[in-house]
């Protein structure tokens, strides 16, 4: 079947339009981050201008951005690691022993509006003095990461042939050893997919952190948001901050595109 020339041209044009429409906000953010306030406020040359690094310098110098980056990284890495520790064995047992009711219970966490948890968490964490600690943030972010890791890993483990385990058992391994020494080492791609998404979700999380983080543990999204509440918006600095927060996840997504796509759609279709 050969599409006609005219049709192919329209398809190309539409594809180009899709590319522009979905890529444009990123281009705009990047451009504005290198503009001075007066360049942003003027409606003259939108694409051609003399770039300035002043916005980036001021973000790091005047505001404690390195600390916010560190906070965000710590919380995202911590919650992902702990979710893996709890989630991998659970997903494996659910997949192999068909404990799907249990799996469903954990997945409900994805359906429930996160804000339903916030008031009780806030009260509880206040009582035990955990507000403004990494512990509170990591625990709350785990409720997003853990169900996702379990969700992705159940379908990954189910796709593994059972012969691998049987041969391990014949060789004298216990089930526990089979999981640790055989299953986990060959599960790299699944674990990478699950970890990346869990990390990204935690890095992006706003709602839980805005209540549970304080001055000491403020994460990047909160810092960038607070940045805005001055009388006149400093657009250049704001866009530089937006670039700084988005860059790590964009790099992760670009480098591991295959994993991220398969993770996002695997979790979806299996659900």
């Amino acid at each position, binding site marked *: 079947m050969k599409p006609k020339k005219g049709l192919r041209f329209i398809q*190309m044009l539409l594809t180009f339009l899709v590319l522009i429409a979905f*890529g444009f906000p990123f281009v705009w953010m990047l451009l504005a981050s290198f503009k001075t306030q007066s360049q942003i406020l003027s409606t003259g040359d939108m694409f051609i201008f003399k770039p300035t690094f002043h916005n980036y310098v001021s973000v790091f110098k005047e505001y404690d951005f390195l600390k916010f980056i560190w906070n965000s990284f710590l919380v995202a890495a911590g919650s992902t690691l702990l979710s893996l520790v709890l989630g991998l064995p659970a997903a494996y047992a659910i997949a*192999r022993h068909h404990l799907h009711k249990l799996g469903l219970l954990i997945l409900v966490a994805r359906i429930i*509006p996160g804000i339903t948890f916030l*008031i009780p968490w806030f009260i509880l964490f206040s009582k035990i003095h955990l507000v403004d600690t990494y512990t509170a943030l990591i625990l709350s972010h785990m409720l997003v990461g853990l169900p996702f890791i379990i969700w992705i890993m159940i379908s990954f483990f189910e796709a593994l042939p059972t012969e691998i385990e049987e041969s391990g058992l014949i060789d004298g391994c216990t*089930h526990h050893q089979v999981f640790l020494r055989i299953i986990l080492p060959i599960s790299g791609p699944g674990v990478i997919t699950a970890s990346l998404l869990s990390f990204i979700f935690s890095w992006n999380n706003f709602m839980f952190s805005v209540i549970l983080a304080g001055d000491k543990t403020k994460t990047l999204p909160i810092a960038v948001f607070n940045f805005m509440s001055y009388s006149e918006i400093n657009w250049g600095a704001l866009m530089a901050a937006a*670039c700084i927060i988005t860059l790590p996840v*964009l790099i992760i997504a670009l480098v591991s*595109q295959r994993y991220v796509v398969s993770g996002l759609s695997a979790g979806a*279709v299996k659900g």
Partner: protein
Amino acid sequence: MQYSWFNRNLKWIYTLPAVIFVLLMMLFPIIYTFRISFYEWSMSATTPPLFVGLSNYIALFKDERFWHATGSTFYFTIMALGLEVILGIAIALLLSREFKGKNIVKTVFLLPMVATPVAMGLVWMLIYEPTIGVANMMLKSMGLQPLLWLASPNQVIPSLVIVDVWQWTPMIALIIMAGLATLPTDPYEAADVDGATAWRKFVSITLPLLKPTIIVAAMLRLIDVLKTFDIIYATTQGGPNFASETLNLYGYVLGFQYFKLGMASSLLVIFFALVMGLTLFMIWMRKRLEGTSS
């Protein structure tokens, strides 16, 4: 084979930590929220929670702001979901053919989904800015009237819908592309023999075969659109004049700005029931549709 206690109970040792964590972090808060919804409490140390029965719920039902938020939630959800499904199918069909640079297009297309929502909210604020924003410059260059976008009570929800569509249409398109890749080829060959047009093939073959995939994608989006928080809070905080205040936002404001914890909890119980109810309804619909199509 002699099994130790550890290995005999392995499946519970593997699952219990995760289950206990989820129960503690999820079930306890839900029960607590439900309980608090019958109390009046502002979290002050001097006044303990006071049992008031259903009066929080009654107060909510008499509260105009609550009904407005419910309306906004549905308005936003229906518009965003509808556009995302239609555009998602169209873009999936467009991108599923082979062409040069397909990977680049797919990669760019993936980025809105993973980009930090708060940062994206700020970028869209700059784009929508009435005097310096590029959105109005484009309108003007096309000879159209500039809009107020986020600053106008009438335009704010459609403007936010555009942001949501930008961010999440890619997810629907990706799921549908995965579905398209698994479609059988024979019906298309048969249709070619019959000389069917491309549109006819889409309506009578592609769409019916894709129905289960479309429903799954729409269901996942429905659950998340209803809960949209980051983008709305980062750009408008529910304004101007409460015009973009959804249930999620009003619950947040009641709880953490007014400290009416009881009333906030009763709103969250209603919101929770709404999301769960719609989800269960979608699951039931999907089962019924799958039952009739197979």
